[in-house]
């Protein structure tokens, strides 16, 4: 009955893909924050968030993206967000995240964007 929040990590060369499933809200956002922080701590700045199975996001989840984007970009990386469901994407759009974040259709497209722009 509960839809859990699960983060699955995969590595594509220099790129780390974090796949999110379930609800990203004020309860689960700290886990996502920790996951992103760990990547940065390990020197991984080219991150793709695969949102295919993400069914819900609230501002606590958006805040994680907001808090790390400058840091990864300054380090020559990015957080690309792939495969947002329409309901979830609507929340990104409503707050203007679509103008600042690279929202792409799927994970291969996100990986492609990174390889088109070599890292610093």
């Amino acid at each position: 009955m509960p839809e859990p929040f699960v983060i699955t990590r995969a590595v594509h060369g220099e790129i780390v893909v974090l796949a999110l499933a379930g609800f990203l809200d004020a309860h689960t956002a700290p886990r996502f924050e920790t996951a992103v922080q760990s990547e940065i701590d390990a020197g991984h700045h080219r991150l793709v968030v695969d949102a295919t199975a993400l069914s819900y996001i609230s501002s606590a989840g958006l805040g994680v993206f907001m808090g790390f984007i400058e840091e990864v970009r300054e380090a020559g990386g990015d957080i690309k967000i792939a495969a947002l469901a329409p309901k979830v994407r609507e929340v990104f759009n409503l707050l203007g995240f679509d103008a600042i974040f690279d929202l792409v259709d799927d994970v291969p497209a996100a990986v492609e964007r990174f390889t088109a722009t070599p890292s610093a």
Partner: protein
Amino acid sequence: MVPETSVRSLEQRFILKVPSSTRNLVMIREFVNRVAEQAWLSETERGQLELAVDEACSNVIEHAYGHDVQKEVTVRATFDDDAVRIAVVDQGAGFDPEAVDQEALETLIEQRKTGGLGMRLIRSLMDEVHYEIEPGRKNELTMVKRRQPPGVGPERGSGSDPES
């Protein structure tokens, strides 16, 4: 299925009280969804109401009660033919909603902020938002979603007039 006019003409009231923990946000969202369903809101409108109430309750849990699970969050929902109204009530110290900075997203990002998006989201998602602040006694955030007049179409656009 068609709305039952005899039932819809009355105001119906639903109340949920839960301990102040983010663990209970799932329960709060299900509650809001069920009320919205009975009020015959569209799927888009249900999603908007769900998110706005989640934001309001997350603020109570974090800011009004500092995650003290012995405190209680109250969600009161009513609907009639015209609108769905949801009030989120806390008994915390209160705050001045007018004084809350509404920085541009770019500024929040430069400052590496992880918060500050909740209230603008609530305002974008709902048709009306009122605060009644009586510090320590009762702080009440009322959010109104007006019902689409019958026959206007199956769905209204997502977020009539987003503000941010």
